[in-house]
Structure formats: structure tokens, C-alpha cells
């Protein structure tokens, strides 16, 4: 029982990452009709926003310590972050420690800017082009973006730890009446889940309760008609793209402490997020979110030792197997609308 | 006994009774029009005839055989062709190719792996297609990309595609919808000409009374999913029930 609860937590956690990426992807699908293969790259860029921001915070100047030597026998150089100079060692250190949460503020304008630039500079010229062209151009863009990151940050994963306060685990089991230490769950993963829920809620509220959101939803349903009403749908769609980029980016920022970011993490998520979107059903935002959590939880269950021993290899294929079963029993995924991306 | 016999057909969509006890008999070599206000169930009925929808109860017999449960392509192979409200043609293909496809379907059935034969060698089919195109005055357009034609031409092409299969029954779903008066008249003339030249039964769903009264031999009026009256055009004109149905809609 305790194991099942743990895996549900894991699934929710994985699911929040899937759901956040899929949410942005399906927004772009639904509103702009664009197959965005660069969406994984946006997630990766978000994670690197956290990396860059923490690098900026830890920008240092060197002082030479004559008493010690480095590996070549030269005097040791020691880096002292400017933050320590500005705020004093203690406050400086804790600012650096809080780099990841702080970089949310830093990443929002950057991701919105990137989204805006991408849509205006590239994507908008591809609305009327075949999906094949969209795939080619966005895939090309994804490669370029990740190569640029690789050129600056190398290919290795870069540890971007969560603040000291969030390291360690929360004894979840005690809340549910289990013995202490049976269900331990890392604080940061709980934070991630809460954060994802917040963002998903915010996006839904935005689409549900603002006129802007109403227009966008109408546009998703029938773009031409909305265009005929004299509403400048294109400008709203640009903003929508920027929001989608921002959601993917924020998913990446907060994910950085969970899995150390590297330049191809976007590609690792890309295929999975497409599967999530399609299983959820094209053009359905709740579908994408629901499918994200569903697949996350199923993946976690399939990874349990008992399950793997019963069905070897199930953990490797569970997501795809479930996707096949769902798509065969429900023609348009869980909540898909008719006629979207079916040609 | 008509070529098409619809008996006691019911169709519900959730709580909505789309068709209620529809009985219809279309005699061979006649033009039978089905009219009725919006939401009367005309399109639902048509979809039941071509296999797109399956009625909840009742039977649909075509030339003595049931069409129920058959796929649209099987029903077509039985001899029913359909013209759509907006012309459905193969837009990416040339006009000639659009004509070749129904001919191949007629000759080879619903599927055949003729992957190595050359299309160029199908001289007989080509000649037949040219004859038909000539009949609808489109011979000069045979190499055109069909998506780039006018709507009128697309409509004529679609009809030619249906007619070249020599169907026993041609279903027309508002063939003049959205057309200008001149185009409508052309279409009426074309249909009349076709009727004169060959043995064919037509079943027309139409809003435009001008078209209906120009073409139809018999008319069925549908209202709220049930046939109201069935009679000759002369008797339908001024029929109180029909007026009531249409006026009721207007009110």
C-alpha cells in the first residue's frame, strides 16, 4: 500500500511535467494549427534560464591564495562571488542558494520574449504551409537552439540544486497514518507538483474568465468565423504562443533541480509530450493535462519492481502501449475534438 | 414496388428524434424530391440511404437488397451515387483523373492492386471519360487541376463523376445550394438533359422550390422527421399541410 501511494506521488510529479509541456504544445496546436517540434527545446531553454540565472548570481572574481597550490603546482585561485561582496557572505550565499525559484522571475520575460520572437519571426509564416513544412522548420529550429546551448554550456548535465530549505524529504506517510519513514517524498517534488497545479490553474482561469481567453477559445473552435467578426485574432495568437512558450519554460525552470539540465533534454521530452497531447485528444486542454497525469502515474506503476518482474520490459513500453490502447478504443484520444489534425 | 423502399425508419440522436417512422418509395426512372424546412431530417435520411448512418429501426431496400449495415463504398457498388451539397471532388488531381477514378471503381471494384499497369494504357476508359466530359461541356478542361476550377465547374465535374458510373439511383443533396440563378438554371438544364438521355432514378433534396418544381416527378415533404405528404408537384403546390409546415418554420 505504501508503495502504491509513493508511486502515485511519483506519477503525479512526472505527470505535472508532462502536463505542463503538453499544455503549451496543445495550445499551439489548437490555436495556431502548428506542429511545433521546437516545443521540447523551449522546455530546455527554460531549464537553462535557471542555469544561466544561477551562473549570473554566482559570477565571481578571483583572488589568489598563495598558501595553496592547484594541480599544476601554481598558486591556487579562489573564486569569490560578487553577491558576497554586495550583500555580505551570508545573504549573498542565500541569494545564490535561492537561484532556481528566483529565476522564475528572470525566465518569464525571457521566455515570453523568445516565444514572441519565434512566432513573429518564424512560425507566423508557416500557418498556411503544410504540416510537413512546419515539422521541418521547427525541428531545424530545435536543433539550432540546442546546439547553441551546447556551444555555451557543453553536453554534460549541469546540477542546479534547489534551495537548501527544500532538500530532503517530507514524511508523507505520517499524514496518512503510516509509520514514520515509510512514505518519504522530496520537498522539491511536492513544490513542483504544486507549482504545476498553479500554472495549469492559471492558464485555465485565464482562458475561461477573460475576454481574451474567450476569443482564443472561440478561435480554437473556428478560426475563420472569429476572423470574420473583425477581431484581430493574429495578435492574440502571438500572445498565445508566447504564453505557451512561457509555460514550457517555467516547467523547465522548476524541473532543473529534479533532473540536471543538459542540452538535449528537450528532445527527450518532445516525443513523449506529443504522445501525451495526442492521447489527451487534439485541441483539448483538459485532455492534455489529464493524459499527462494518467501516463505519468501508469509509468510509475509500471516501474515498480513487482510489476517489472511479472512483465519484463513493461516499464520500457508502458506509455506507448497505453497510447495505442487508448487511441484504438477512443478514436480521438481521451477528449479530442472532431476534425482537428485528422487529415 | 419502387427501386428504393424505405420502411419505418427511425433514428434518434440522444433525446432528439431525427427520423420518425419514415416510409418512402421511389419509383424507377423518376425524379423524386424530398423537401422540408431546416431540421426536418432530410440530410439524416440521405445519410441513412448511403450508409453513413445506420437507422435505429426500419429497413432500406435498394433494388430488392438491404443497404443497412453496408459501407458507403459497398452501397455505391450496388448502384447508388451521391452528389454533395458542396462539391466533393479530388482537388489535388486533374479533371481527367477525377473521371478515371469512378470508372476504375466501376470496372475493378472497391479495391484492386493495379500497381504496375500504366494509367496511360487505359485508353478505353479515357475515351469514355472524354465522352462524358464532352457531355457536360468540360472536355477542354480535362488537364486542369480540379481544385482551381470555379464552383460551377466543380459541381458539373462531380455530377459527371457520378453519372459516368451509370448509377441506377443518383442522390443529390441540395445540388444548387449557394449558386447564382444562372448557374442554378444551368444545373436544372443539365439534370433534365441527363434524365432524357438515360434511364436513371434521381432523388433530390432541395430547398429551392424552383428547382424542385422544374425537375421532380413526385415530392415528399418532411417535417420534424416524418413524411407529411407525398404527391405530384401540382398537388403539392398549395397543399395546406405544406404551407403550415413552412410557415410554422418561418414563425
Amino acid at each position, binding site marked *: 500500500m*505504501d*508503495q502504491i501511494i*509513493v*508511486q502515485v*506521488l*511519483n*506519477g503525479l*510529479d*512526472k505527470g505535472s*511535467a508532462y502536463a505542463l509541456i503538453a499544455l503549451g504544445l496543445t495550445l499551439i496546436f489548437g490555436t495556431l494549427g502548428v506542429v511545433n517540434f521546437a516545443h521540447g527545446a523551449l522546455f530546455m531553454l527554460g531549464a537553462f534560464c535557471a542555469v544561466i540565472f544561477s551562473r549570473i548570481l554566482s559570477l565571481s572574481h578571483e583572488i589568489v591564495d598563495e598558501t595553496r597550490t*592547484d*594541480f*599544476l603546482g601554481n598558486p*591556487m585561485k579562489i573564486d569569490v562571488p560578487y553577491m558576497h561582496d554586495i550583500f555580505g557572505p551570508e545573504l549573498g550565499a542565500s541569494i545564490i542558494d535561492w537561484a532556481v525559484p528566483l529565476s522564475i522571475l528572470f525566465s518569464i520575460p525571457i521566455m515570453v520574449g523568445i516565444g514572441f520572437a519565434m512566432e513573429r519571426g518564424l512560425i507566423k509564416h508557416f500557418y498556411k504551409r503544410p504540416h510537413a513544412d512546419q515539422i521541418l522548420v521547427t525541428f531545424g529550429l530545435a536543433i539550432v537552439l540546442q546546439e547553441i546551448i*551546447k556551444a555555451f554550456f*557543453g*553536453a*554534460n*548535465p*549541469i*546540477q542546479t*540544486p534547489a534551495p537548501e530549505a527544500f*532538500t*530532503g*524529504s517530507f514524511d508523507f506517510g505520517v499524514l496518512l497514518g503510516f509509520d514514520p*519513514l*515509510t512514505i*518519504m*517524498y*522530496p520537498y*522539491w*517534488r511536492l513544490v513542483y507538483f504544486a507549482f504545476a497545479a498553479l500554472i495549469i490553474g492559471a492558464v485555465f482561469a485565464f482562458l475561461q474568465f477573460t475576454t481574451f481567453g474567450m476569443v482564443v477559445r472561440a478561435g480554437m473552435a473556428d478560426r475563420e468565423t472569429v476572423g470574420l467578426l473583425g477581431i484581430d485574432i493574429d495578435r492574440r495568437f502571438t500572445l498565445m504562443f508566447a504564453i505557451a512558450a512561457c509555460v514550457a519554460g517555467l516547467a523547465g525552470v522548476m524541473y532543473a533541480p*529534479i*533532473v*540536471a539540465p*543538459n542540452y*538535449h*533534454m528537450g528532445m*527527450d521530452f518532445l516525443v513523449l509530450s506529443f504522445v501525451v497531447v495526442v492521447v489527451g485528444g487534439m485541441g483539448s486542454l483538459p485532455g492534455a493535462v489529464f493524459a499527462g497525469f494518467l501516463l505519468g502515474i501508469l*509509468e*510509475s506503476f509500471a*516501474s*515498480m*519492481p513487482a510489476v*517489472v518482474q511479472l512483465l*519484463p520490459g513493461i*516499464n*520500457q513500453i508502458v506509455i506507448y502501449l497505453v497510447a495505442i490502447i487508448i487511441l484504438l478504443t477512443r478514436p480521438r484520444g481521451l477528449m479530442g475534438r472532431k476534425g482537428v489534425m485528422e487529415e | 414496388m419502387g427501386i428504393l423502399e424505405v420502411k419505418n425508419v427511425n433514428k434518434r440522436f440522444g433525446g432528439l428524434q431525427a427520423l420518425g417512422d419514415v416510409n418512402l418509395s421511389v419509383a424507377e426512372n423518376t425524379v423524386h424530391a424530398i423537401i422540408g424546412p431546416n431540421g426536418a431530417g432530410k440530410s439524416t435520411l440521405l445519410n441513412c440511404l448511403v450508409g453513413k448512418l445506420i437507422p435505429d429501426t426500419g429497413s432500406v431496400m435498394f433494388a430488392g437488397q438491404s443497404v443497412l449495415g453496408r459501407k458507403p463504398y459497398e452501397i455505391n457498388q450496388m448502384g447508388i451515387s451521391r452528389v454533395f451539397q458542396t462539391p466533393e471532388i479530388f482537388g489535388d488531381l486533374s479533371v481527367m483523373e477525377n473521371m478515371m477514378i469512378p470508372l476504375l471503381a466501376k470496372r475493378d471494384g472497391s479495391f484492386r492492386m493495379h500497381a504496375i499497369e500504366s494509367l496511360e494504357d487505359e485508353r478505353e476508359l479515357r475515351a469514355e471519360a472524354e465522352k462524358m466530359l464532352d457531355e457536360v461541356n468540360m472536355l477542354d478542361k480535362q488537364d486542369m487541376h480540379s481544385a482551381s476550377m470555379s464552383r460551377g465547374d466543380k459541381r458539373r465535374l462531380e455530377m459527371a463523376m457520378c453519372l459516368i458510373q451509370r448509377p441506377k439511383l443518383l442522390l443529390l443533396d441540395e445540388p444548387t445550394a449557394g449558386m447564382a440563378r444562372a448557374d442554378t438554371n444551368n444545373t436544372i438544364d443539365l439534370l433534365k438533359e441527363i434524365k432524357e438521355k438515360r434511364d436513371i432514378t434521381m432523388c433530390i433534396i432541395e430547398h429551392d422550390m424552383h428547382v424542385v418544381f422544374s425537375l421532380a416527378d413526385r415530392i415528399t415533404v418532411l417535417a420534424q422527421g416524418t413524411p407529411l405528404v407525398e404527391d405530384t408537384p401540382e398537388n403539392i403546390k398549395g397543399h395546406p399541410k405544406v404551407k403550415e409546415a413552412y410557415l410554422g418554420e418561418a414563425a
Partner: protein
Amino acid sequence: MSRQNLTRRGVLKTGAAAGAGLALPTYLSAAGHEGFTNAPSGDTVTLGFNVPLTNAYAEEGADELRALELAVEHLNGGGDGGMLQTFSSKALDGTGILGKKVEYVTGDTQTKSDAARASARSMIEKDGAVMITGGSSSGVAVAVQALCQEAGIIFMAGLTHSNDTTGKDRKANGFRHFFNSYMSGAALAPILVDQYGADRKAYHLTADYNWGYTTEEAMASSTEALGWETVNSVKTPLTQTDFSAYIAPVLNSGADVLVLNHYGGNMVNSLTNAVQFGLREAEANGKKFEVVVPLYSELMARGAGQNIAGILGSQNWDWKLENQLGARYSGTNAFVQSFGEKYGFPPSQAAHTCYVQTLLYADAVTRAGSFAPCAVVEALEGFEFDGLGNGPTLYRADDHQCFKDVVVVRGKENPENEFDLVEIVEVTPTEQVTYAPDHPQFAGGALGTCNNGA
């Protein structure tokens, strides 16, 4: 420079085939008559450096390439000569190999066996390489080794740790300097027992592919022999990035040690997750919970950051060896010095093994007096040497595996910089990690005969 792309037998047969209908004119350049593939004819010889330039192991590939370029520089008499000064064999004199200047070509393995073979084939067919080295995974090493065997080229494996490379997939034309899974197990087990006690229950998480299997087998059998119990072992997909679902059940499984048979990105992520789930602070069975990483990589340790603190693992070599454990490991400092001077940071073990392999190849050619693969094989088989940083080393004839000391390391608690992340715990002497050539973990392979390609 020679670009003779074909095997001698091939040419003769094609001659016959030409008569039989292909009617191709066949002109042979003189070099074809030396009797082996890509015999160097001019005053240069070309080596092929096939390393991952893209994908997950790109950093290791880049480091290997740095070391390989350094090796070429030293072989051609440039720089300070590096390990040439300390190498026990004095055949190399800085004038290239057999008087021929060393040139090299580079290619990208992408850490995919197909791409690695394509790249290696282009080096053989287009560039006339006589030897191929580099690589950062066992799948690639096995694939390229098999190719070199077929083509009549020498393969000096780079970083490959699976038993299979010199076990069931061993080849006469292939040589491995790097250590292997069995050696990791044999070296680590006594130290693990020493540090954590003999009454331990281990839980294995294993990357679901060949290297993972051999490493798990080696670790389990070595530790079990000394009293440990293996509670469970779970395979994890190679493409996994978030290991939470695998880590979470560990704590309540009754185990008190977690063995992560992971490498590269897998290792970084699974270790990070293990730390997140509090395994480092946890207690189980009344003992402190421990995590073990059988194969350490300094470059990946950098990726894991603070998380490796206090975690035991094994390495083929470490740049601090000579400083800390004395002259037995001579060559280390010479290499670190010239590498550090040139690039500004110490080399990784991947860089070291590639550098050493290149030197060993050059030396074997020089001693054999020929580039012919079979002559090189003969010169390397049973070759005993010293001064290349690992202490006295034997290239065993039976399976072309090097036998030398294994370094057991532990992640530093307070590293001073990003290159100094591990501390040496102990060095396990060669005898303890030596095994019989037909050891069950290595069974099923045969070297075959060396192939000159002629």
C-alpha cells in the same frame, strides 16, 4: 599519402569478377602489395579518432580528442613528450611511427553503433586509417571492433567497461586498455565490505543494456562472495531521465545499500534522485544507508555535483595517482602536466586511456617494425609495460585485456574545484582483479585469428 582502400584478396577477386562481366579497369597503386589494409606508403601514417562529438557523451568525446591530439603531438616530437619520457619501452623517439609523421582524422560516433561504424568505415575507406581508437560506450566499441576485425585494421578501444568487449565479443584485432565490470566488482567488493561491513543487503538498479547486465553480474557476484546479500535488482530503461519511480521503493525494500549500475546521464540522474529521496541520510536495518556507483567518471561526477560526496566507486585511473600514491604510477604526472599546460585542466580517465592506447599502438608498431595488423597484434600480446600511469601492466594474450591496478575512489565532501571531485580511497592490486580468460563472465567468445585484410 596512401589511400589504398581495398583488401588484397578483394582486389584479386574483383579482377576475376571483372572478367566475369563487370569489366572494370583495375589499376593498383604500389602500396596495395604490402599485404595489409591501408599500408602507409608515403611519409605519413593516418590514425582514426572515432569519438562521440554529439549526444550524451560529447564531453567525454571532446576530452578523448584532446588527449589524442596530444598523443599525436608527442609522437611527432612536439611538446614536452608527455609519457614518452616515462614509458618503460623506449622504442618511440618522437619521430612519428617508423619514421612516418602521424596524421589523424576525426569522426563522430554519436554513441550509436551504426553511426560509429559509418564513421570508422569512412576513415578506413576514404582516409586510409591503419588504426582506430576512441569511443565512450561498449556498444560502439563492440561494433567498431568487429568492423576493424573484418577490415584488417587495429582497434585500440577507448572507454568501454562492459565485460563483453574482451569477453564474448573479443576480437584478435581489438585491444582494451580500460578496465571492465569484473575488475570493478573485484576491486570494490573488499573495500565495500571493509567500509560498510559484511552483513549488508544490496539493491541493484541496472541500466537495461549489455553493460548494465555485466556490471550488475560482476558487482553482485563479487559482493555476495564476501557475505553480502542481493535483495533485488531492477532494470531501468536507458532513456529514463527521472528515476524517482525506481528510487522510491528502495528504502522500504529491506536493503541497506543501493548499487547504481548506471553510467553517464543515467548515473547523474539516478544519483541525484537518490539524494533527493533522502537515501544518503536514511538508515536501514540499523545501519547507515549507502550508495555505490561501480564505474565513476570524473566528467559525469561534475554533472552530479554535490551528490557524489562520500559515494564509493572505481576508476581506471585518476590524475592524482602519482602525487598521492607515489612513483609506482609514474607517467601520471608527466601526462597531467602536458595535458594541463595545453588545455588548462586535468585530463579524465577517458582521455588517459585513449592517450595510452595510441602510445601503445605506436610502440607496438615500432617494436614490430611493421604496420601490419598481425605484426602489431603479436607485439602487443603478452606485452608488459610500465610508466603509463597505471603501474606495471600486462596486455594479456588470451583476450587482449590489460591487467593493472584498479583505483577505488570516493566523492569528496568538500571539493575545491570542479576537477577535484573524488579522492582516492585505495588501489586494488592487479592480482585481486585478475581472472581466468575463460571465466564464466567472459565466456562464449573467441579471439579468432588476426586479420591483415590481405
